[in-house]
């Protein structure tokens, strides 16, 4: 096999660590391949990626053994500058990696570093920006780009050198669905039309797996499985074991014992329909609206005609929003970036004053910060400012009562969130998933009646998401109210009792998940997609099932006479 990347028994240990982050890796990647490198958070996949363009070992320190061959040449013998001509590297956060002020300058940077003539640079930049779909943005400020455009610019900024390999480290983790779709479409195009080898690190398998041809699975620094995408579909339990989410159509087919080589809804529906004579659903479930909130329980949050703009003559961020959220409800707030989700949370949290309209929390008019509202910010790092996890979790309670140290309730929280063994650790030194759980525990410790969470699922693998949701469900069962922003339709559909969709500051849909996710036009306008399970249910039997289990149950009950399970 012709190999563009080859790793021979590679082991790497960071300085001041005793255990290797990557151990005994043997790997060969052919030119033009599209490889997905996956595994749970902290498994060593980003470390492996950094070896490809020489950041490891040239810039990292640490001990590297084995050989890394890029285009047949040992990476140790070549500088990062030389390797950058072969391997382009794109990082997770678009904001952190961009360096210039304009799109043109950012794209030209790598070419200037090679000493290319200005005229040649101009033509190469034009060509590259066309490849990533930003031909008309040359003179635009990088600050004027959306998240998806910034990440495409990050791709252009390395693609300009015409590398043979493009290595991307969780490039869609901080993008909304529209931005992620734009970037993935560009990658697919580059691989298909330009023959560019793509190595993508990602744990959101359900989004990227349909694009790749080969899958590598890592665990604790080791490559535990590798094979084609189709083979990976057959190994779904293995991936699930490592906390990774397969595309829902693949899971449905697997649980029904149907073989499929595709994650496309249409292919999966055809495969299931061939194996099972699934009858059309005769009784349509209720899709109209929620029960009258007033009948459910006392309102936790009441919003009347709330409008807001950040600057007097600026854009209307929230536009006449009316909402009533009863106590005990678990509500997902969805919409693309810029739809007004975070602003709405900040309004309820008392961090912003309404331009117009009123907010009441637990019956009281909101005039500023309220102890009735707890809030977990989008970036949990900025909420952690104590020396130990114990101090962090008990912080709010210490503010309320001098001399408070620890309570059985705090202990219960840390047990539920799997933080028991790290009580004396420095919170900021924990992994991202652990940091989020500490931030959540720190807010929940003071038992606020209303809990707001700004994109708590971003960057989390499904195992962590389940832990968090389990805790939040317990909290709502005890009367707490949860309102969380998310881009993850599968999580919202599975766990939320109600979904509110914002688009350009207005509530465009509000209801049960099955009612909201069946409004295709609204979803399209808001840049959202329905979960694949729902699409399958619709196409297969005209149903409104939201989860894999519901679809499988229906098919098994109708076709196998209730032997589901």
């Amino acid at each position, binding site marked *: 096999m012709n190999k563009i990347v080859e790793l021979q028994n590679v082991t790497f240990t960071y300085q001041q660590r005793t255990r290797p982050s990557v151990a005994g890796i043997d790997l060969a990647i052919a030119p033009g391949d599209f490889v997905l490198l996956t595994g749970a958070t902290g498994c060593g996949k980003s470390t492996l990626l*950094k070896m490809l*363009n020489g*950041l490891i070992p040239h*810039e990292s320190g640490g001990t590297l053994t084995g050989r890394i061959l890029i285009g047949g040449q040992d990476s140790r013998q070549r*500088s*990062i*500058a030389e390797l*950058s*001509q072969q391997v*382009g*590297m794109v*990082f*997770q*956060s678009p*904001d*952190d*990696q*961009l*360096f*210039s*002020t*304009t799109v043109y*300058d950012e794209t030209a*940077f*790598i070419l*200037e*570093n*090679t*000493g290319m003539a*200005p005229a040649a640079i101009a033509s190469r930049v034009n060509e590259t920006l066309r490849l990533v779909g930003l031909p008309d943005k040359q*003179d635009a*400020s990088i*600050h004027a780009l959306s998240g998806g455009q910034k990440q495409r610019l*990050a791709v252009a*900024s*390395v693609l300009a*050198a015409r590398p043979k390999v493009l290595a991307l480290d969780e490039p869609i983790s901080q993008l909304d669905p529209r931005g992620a779709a734009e970037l993935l479409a560009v990658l697919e195009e580059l691989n298909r039309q330009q023959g560019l080898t793509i190595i993508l690190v990602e744990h959101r398998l359900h989004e990227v797996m349909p694009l790749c041809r080969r899958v590598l699975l890592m665990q604790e620094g080791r490559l535990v499985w590798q094979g084609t995408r189709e083979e990976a579909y057959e190994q779904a339990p293995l991936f699930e074991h490592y906390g990774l989410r397969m595309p829902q159509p693949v899971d449905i087919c697997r649980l029904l014992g149907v073989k499929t080589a595709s994650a496309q809804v249409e292919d999966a529906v055809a495969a299931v329909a061939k194996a099972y004579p699934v009858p059309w659903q005769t009784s349509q479930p209720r899709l109209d609206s929620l029960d009258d909130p007033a009948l459910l329980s006392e309102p936790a949050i009441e919003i009347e005609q709330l409008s807001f703009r950040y600057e007097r003559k600026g854009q209307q961020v929230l536009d006449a929003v009316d909402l009533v959220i009863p106590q005990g409800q678990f509500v997902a707030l969805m919409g693309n970036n810029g739809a007004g989700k975070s602003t709405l949370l900040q309004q309820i*949290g008392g*961090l912003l004053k309404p331009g117009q309209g009123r907010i009441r929390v637990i019956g009281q008019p909101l005039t500023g*910060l309220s*102890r009735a509202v*707890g*809030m977990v*910010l989008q*970036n949990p*790092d*900025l*909420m*952690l*400012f*104590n020396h130990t996890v114990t101090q962090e979790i008990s*912080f*709010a309670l210490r*503010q*309320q009562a001098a001399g408070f140290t620890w309570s059985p309730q705090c202990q219960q929280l840390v047990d539920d969130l799997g933080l028991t063994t790290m009580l004396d650790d420095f919170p*900021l030194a924990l992994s991202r998933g652990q940091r989020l759980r500490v931030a959540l525990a*720190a*807010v929940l410790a*003071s038992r606020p009646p209303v809990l707001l969470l700004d994109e708590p699922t971003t960057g989390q693998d499904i195992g962590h998401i389940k832990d968090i949701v389990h805790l939040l469900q317990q909290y709502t069962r005890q009367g707490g109210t949860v309102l969380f922003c998310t881009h993850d339709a599968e999580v919202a559909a599975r766990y939320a009792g109600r979904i509110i969709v914002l688009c350009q500051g207005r509530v465009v849909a509000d209801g049960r998940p099955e009612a909201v996710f069946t409004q295709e036009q609204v979803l399209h306008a808001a840049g959202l997609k329905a979960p694949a399970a729902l699409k399958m249910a619709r196409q297969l039997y005209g149903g409104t099932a939201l989860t894999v289990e519901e679809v499988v149950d229906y098919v098994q009950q109708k076709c196998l006479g209730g032997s589901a399970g």
Partner: protein
Amino acid sequence: MYNKNVWEAVPGDTWVHQLDVRTKLAALVCCAVLVVLLDSPRTLYLLFCTTLVLHGIARASWARWRVLLLFVMLGIWGSMISQALFYGQEPRTVVACLLSPAVPLIGTLTGGVYIYREGLEYGAVQALRSASMLSMGLLISWTSDPRQLLRSFLAWKMPYELAFMLITGLRFLPVIFQETAVVLTAQRLRGFEPLRSLAPRRLIQTAFQTLFPILARTLRRAVTLAFSVESRGFGRAVHRLGLGRWPQGQWFGCVLLLLVLLSLMVLKVIDALQFNGIRYFPELRRFYDLMKVWM
């Protein structure tokens, strides 16, 4: 203030934006020398106004004017108040008495607290010096591409590590401001009131608690940026400057500015010789008068 775009350089088509970064840096250096060289409040005031005119030409947004004004006012207030109260040179003229020496204990201990006119004037001069530099510095960071700034520093033989650190600082300054606001918000959300007590121990504790998360985030960001830049062939080992030709007109302008600066330095020396009674040139009497007013 917490709006990231207020702090970050944005491209523009104004004359200031179009200037070569080297020209802007040369102007900054000249400004730095001038503020040391000049003692005359009116000339320093003119220099400060010139920097404001440049902001006007660069069409600074209202948000940026507000930031500039805030910093300048804070600088002027701090400098004038401290100098007015603690001015130690003679002669000095008392314009107000804040605490009479006759007040039991504190008055006796301090010998009275006064506001001195000369202190106010000296403070104003110092404030104009720092305000001019602040204004020029902000002008350059708001209108120059960080990539070009880095290249200019390297072209002028600044060590790579120092240059990269400086640029990374500039690049992340806006984010740091924004994130400080988020941390303070997070603290308030959890019932913490940073300024509830002004006891030094508590203030230090608050400062650490606010800085921890920001430093951690900034460090992670800086590592990513460094990796990103290195991954694009720019680093300690290899850094092609790729700056292009310094436009001739601007180059001549800078040389002229440098010559003017040198001339001013010579004039300052001549004036100092006369002022200290070392050497007096009678034919330069009018010049000495001019120097007294303008320098």
